[in-house]
């Protein structure tokens, strides 16, 4: 360490250095729910998962497993005896709200992702998670984390995009430091960053920049103001050899590891996790087994990590896909695209869980459901993704947010998914 430096005194003489305060930029600690979506990309087969269907006499086989087996139940939740479902559903049934029979209104992957994660088929709406971060935690350094998939923010918040290299990130989040040694004096480095902030703020205020240039500078400024907590977060990340290994179709466990660490560290409020590989046009069952196993293992890991971190009580997990797969096999023993799918919503210790909304018939067609009782009803309404999003917005307190009012769902029936009874 050096002797007491003069440079802060020097800096105070700088004409531009005094324009803005050196302190007072810390974000308010976030104390709300942590919201995670798990995007099963490529379209899962819910008849082999949370919307089990058995073969019907006179119809094409809908599931191979039902030739020799029956639908299983854990608590109030039905599930298919397939892959590692049993362990998963038995362990988490009391944390689950299963909504079956949700029509994605499309057979296209890209639109399927759009409608499932923004609530409508047309582009232009953000993800629920982006909205939530923007509404409740806009200044966290990585408020909205995404590992790919559909992650539009519509300029509400800047998404932190992560990929396969999360296990490298820790050593890179502490600029000017290698282990605990600084490359230049830490106070001097702070001064450098402060000057960057001052310069940027001045330019934004004084120059008639184009909107794109202004926005880019605002992003830089915002990043500088909010990045400091990342140093501590880096210390909480696993060491290189402590990261979970990649699986065959992704790194869902790594994503979960990272996400829980980010929540625990207070640097993030939402995350979109992804796992690809569900597009099983050939050999549906073997493809789905592999991927459902990885999916449920990843979700299980997420919950276990949350428990260990002491934040499981604040975690809300929404699992979904582009849509589902046909209620019959094609000639390659695969299944093609089918618009009627499911959502799995998970939370710990809530009255609305251990609930199963049976919105599809035996042929995997959407049927009408009473919005209040959530039971099939000829006077009810067929469910679409906007119904689920509307309910989630209400549940998360977003519906009345001015921020969110710009993305309304018109004439959407309210479904009572989150009632306590």
């Amino acid at each position: 360490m050096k002797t007491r430096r003069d440079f802060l005194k020097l800096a105070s003489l700088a004409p531009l250095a005094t324009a803005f305060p050196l302190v007072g930029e810390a974000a308010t600690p976030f104390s709300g729910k942590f919201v995670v979506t798990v995007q099963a990309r490529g379209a899962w087969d819910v008849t082999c998962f949370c919307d089990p269907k058995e073969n019907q006499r006179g119809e094409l086989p809908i599931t191979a497993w039902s030739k020799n087996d029956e639908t299983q139940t854990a608590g109030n939740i039905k599930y298919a005896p397939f892959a590692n479902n049993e362990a998963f559903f038995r362990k988490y049934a009391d944390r689950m709200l299963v909504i079956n029979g949700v029509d994605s209104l499309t057979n296209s992957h890209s639109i399927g992702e759009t409608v499932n994660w923004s609530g409508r088929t047309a582009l232009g709406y953000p993800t629920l998670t982006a909205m939530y971060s923007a509404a409740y935690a806009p200044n966290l350094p990585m408020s909205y984390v995404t590992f790919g998939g559909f992650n539009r923010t519509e300029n509400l918040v800047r998404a932190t995009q992560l990929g396969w290299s999360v296990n490298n990130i820790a050593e890179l989040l502490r600029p000017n430091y290698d282990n605990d040694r600084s490359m230049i004096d830490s106070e001097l480095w702070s001064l450098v960053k402060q000057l960057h902030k001052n310069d940027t703020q001045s330019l934004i205020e004084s120059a008639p920049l184009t909107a794109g240039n202004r926005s880019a500078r605002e992003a830089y400024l915002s990043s500088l103001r909010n990045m400091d907590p990342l140093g501590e977060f880096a210390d909480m990340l696993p060491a290189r050899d402590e990261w979970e290994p990649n699986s065959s179709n992704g790194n869902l466990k790594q994503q979960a590891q990272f996400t829980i660490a980010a929540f625990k560290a207070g640097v993030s409020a939402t995350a979109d996790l992804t796992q690809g590989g569900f597009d099983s046009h050939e050999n549906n069952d073997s493809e789905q087994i592999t991927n459902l196993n990885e999916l449920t293992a990843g979700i299980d890991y997420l919950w276990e990590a949350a428990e260990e971190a002491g934040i499981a009580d604040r975690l809300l997990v929404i699992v979904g896909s582009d849509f589902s797969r046909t209620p019959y096999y094609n000639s390659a023993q695969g299944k093609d695209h089918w618009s009627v799918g499911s959502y799995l919503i998970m939370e710990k210790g809530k009255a609305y869980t251990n609930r199963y909304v049976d919105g599809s018939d035996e042929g995997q067609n959407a049927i009408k459901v009473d919005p209040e009782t959530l039971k099939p009803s000829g006077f009810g309404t067929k469910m679409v993704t906007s119904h689920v999003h509307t309910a989630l917005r209400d549940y998360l307190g977003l519906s009345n947010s001015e921020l969110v009012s710009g993305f309304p769902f018109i004439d959407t029936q309210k479904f009572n998914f989150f009632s306590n009874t």
Partner: protein
Amino acid sequence: MRALKSLALTLSRPALAASLLALGGTGFAASTTPIATIESATTDGSASSSVFQLSVTSGQLANALTTSSDIELSVSIAPQRSHRGLVGDVYSVVVADGKFFKLTQDGSYSPWDGSIEDLTPFATNQNLASTNSFTLLDGKMAAPGSYLYFVAYGVEGESRLLYTPDPAQFAVTESSSLPDDSTSQAAETFEAELETAVVQEKCIQCHVEGGLARNSSLQFQRTNTASALNNFAALSAFVEEKGADLLLAKITGGEGHAGGMQLSQDSDGYQAFERVLAEINALENPTYYAFNGAGDGAGARQASFLTEVTLEPRAATLRRATLLLQGRLPTRLEQEAVVSDATLRSALRNLMQGPAFREFIVTSVNDRLLTEGSSNTLNTAYSHFLKLHNHKASESINDTGSLVEGKVHEGLRRTSGELVAYVIENELPYSEILTADYMMMNNTMNTWLEGTASFSPDEGDEIFKPSVVQGYYHNDALEEVEFRENSNSTYRAIGEPLQNFPHAGLLTDFGFLSRYPTTATNRNRARARWTFYHFLGIDIEKSSQRPTDEASLSDRNNPTMNNPNCTVCHALLDPVAGAFQNWDEDNFYRGNGTDALDGFYKYPQDGSRSPYRQGDLWYRDMRAPGLFDQKITERETTLRSLAELIVAEPAFETASAAFWWSPVFGKPLLDKPAVESDNGYAAKLAAYRAQQDAIESFSGALGPQMNAKDMLVDMFMSPWFSGETVTSYAFDSAHFESKFGSDQLLTPQQLARKTRALTGVAWRTRPRPSGREDSYYDELAVLLGGIDSEAVTSRAIELTPTMASILMTHATESACVAVARQFARPAGERSLLSLIEESTQPQVDAFEQLTLPSKNENDWQTVAMDAELTPGLREVALTFTNPECDWDGSQCVEQRVLWISSLTVIAPSGQRLTYQGNDTRIYPSNEWRNGGNQNCHTGGDGLGHCYGGEIKFELNARESGKYRIEAVLAGRLMPSKPEFLELAFAVKTKAPILSLSTPNAQLIKKQISQLYEKLHGTLRAPDSDEVAQVYEIFAAALLAEQEGDGSDWEFENCQVWNDGYYDWDLLSKEEVESYKSVPPGGDWYQDDWRIKGQLLHKFTQDPIGTKYAWTAVMMYMLSHYDYLHE
């Protein structure tokens, strides 16, 4: 600054469309509100009794006007009785933002200097009645503000003017978007009477993306929540361009309407069209009034997306394009050659060649095609590429098999980009990206795929050449020669390889085919979908919304052929899928030798009868190969036929321009906004339309030769690349939606090239013996804002705290290495710090580095330096710069030691002042913090001893002139490293560092100014605030280092190993080879750090803190917004 020259004087189509799109919404019916009634005054002070009444007509209340409001300001003049029946002239003046403008006869405003002489009427020879109405403005105000209006008139025979002594005032506030909230009767009529009954029922059958009338300028959208609105806009645009008469004629089958008669003149639909067209005609083009006093003739002018934009200087465009295309800064010659737009164009064109340009193309093409995300470009488990297969099969006895396969895969993931680069660089018709009857191969690929290109042995795999596959065999031309269980068998050829391999540019690119694989049910539809998307600009998935009624989709009678809800897309998609008929799921051309059909189709597992017939190449239950309404009947090279059809489509050219949008501008191309009620819809639509107009324009630059360089030059010359500032915020919302502006966040690869080119540093990048590179820029691609071509496929365009944090680490880790690299070379050879030396410190009056030629402690030598001084207090420092100790854990086995006998200062007058070596005045008073051990101390032998560090003493210079400082010294050397001791003398001023204006201080500021220019591309004068600020960083760092504990002869924690080329660049080949080795069979280097450390040590020595200070400056520079963006 470069002003945008072509101000649009006619309203562009987007603006009209945006205005016409207002449908319902929040607007009010237009109403008229008086804002002022003013009795006249006269210019000569005489009495008058005329009255002026000014009124605002708008859809908004007069006190709630915004920049998006349509405003009509009118004045009603009630002349005094004596003026009625006379002829008069009328005047009006507006005060906006403190400036005066007069209304002119053409309805525009021009600056007024305030004098009567300069005032001109906007209406002349008016016969004055009891009331006379005039319109003063009719349109939108481009900027918010308060507007003061004055009106006057004069009559013939009178020299005086009657005017409003007080202004009529109205205020306009900023609108958050670009809505036109006025109710459009035309739009309402259209939605109510035409959208469902006519457009969706009839017109849409052909006038839709990909439909038979796809080349018509009238394109509708299928039903969705916004189709009525968008279709109305489409109709309006068509009418504006072609006229209502043409539309009505075509509807009734006239004017060669290919669709024949759709509506008779007496039909309800036709009459509804007539009404809508009449109502459209009644709408006027909005005018934007801008009062900004600019030198180009301020006043009312019609504004559009680009008219309020000011471009960056040409030099900035050249710099940014050079970094983007060449990964370097422009040379002086290149800079000096750019003196006009024409020369800038020429300079840009010259950048479009060479390896760096090709890398730009390859990266850009991958951003679209994502071939880097291909997992298995060539399935070598099969024997079709016989030579490669057998080599791979022999892996157990030849471990290079998988290595070769890996190289081939790596090459195949690049070939799409290499093909496009080859076409562009060689100025071949751009259509050749699809029609090429060859592919690009490097040496390895050419060898193992048995290509036709010629490579010399010294040409590495970074070189790609056109080549044709000649080593591909069908199954029936091969015979197994060795069966190998649990491994690939080996084969031999018993027939001929395929002659005339049917290359068709990107369509047969193995990376492309494998990135979008086919299956038994997909049947090449994914390949077709992306072919439409990339090469015709048609997004089939978004072209039609699926019905919500599952009953309409529940039939199983081959719905893609028969169900209208499915055929809407599949009629377009499936013929193109059919053109891929010869390419199977393993990317083989008729892998089984006869066709590429899947076995499930040909031989159903359930025993049902297949429609397949011997000789079929395509599915009988799908549409025949083709494109739109054109069939492909040829069977062997169907993709080449498809390519010919695609490149003949006009949409290929616009798709080509769209393809290059993101790579050139660094921003995504917007999707067409779909829902009118969305927030900011008007702004999004305006931005989208502006982009589409630009694309149309860029595609036109391809010209008949289809020269892509011409198109790219146009793109780089456009405001989309170089728009820097705005003169008004009229289109701010639309600009925001498109992130319009010159600044681009550098991609990881661009940042890598920039840092390497400007600083020399290859951050966390290491070469391998094979010539390949490991780079964190690639490994961290997503974390740095890039893509992985799999899950993350779109680049970040703005920073997040995480990205910023990592980029700051990039800056801090690179900075000290960059400085060490600079000081490793003589000043004249440095790229950045060429103006200063290590001794160039603000306080230093004189500095000299010396070698002490003493061989042992008894070998006393006198060394000296001269210093030209003026009177004043100084400090003299003698620093021992190469101390070393061979530490065995408890003591120094060997150590260099400096022995000081005396130090003498000889003034210009000859007066001498001598300190003996043990004089306590020359030792810092207990400032050492090096574990409590002094590095220099007095000895009982009357001498001073130094094991490192420095001694100092004060020099109060009372004379001006040359001072001489002598030291009598001896050195103990290390037997194992017998280099002489190295010393540095410095004479420093003791005044406060920030107040110094010594030549060195000036030089440092000049150097900082130059760093701004080189690293940021910004001009900051040496006496500017910005330079002063960075100078303070330098000074602060220098003081901090000099006041340190004396242990920091090297940078603190400077991680030179983070730069994989550091030693390669700074040491000789022999020196590098003295410590590097390659493990057997490995592809990495092992370094002997005992040797390497010794060789590199000198570059990071920093005895007087200069390198540390410049490191702080470099950290500032490399972490600055202007470094991370170009």
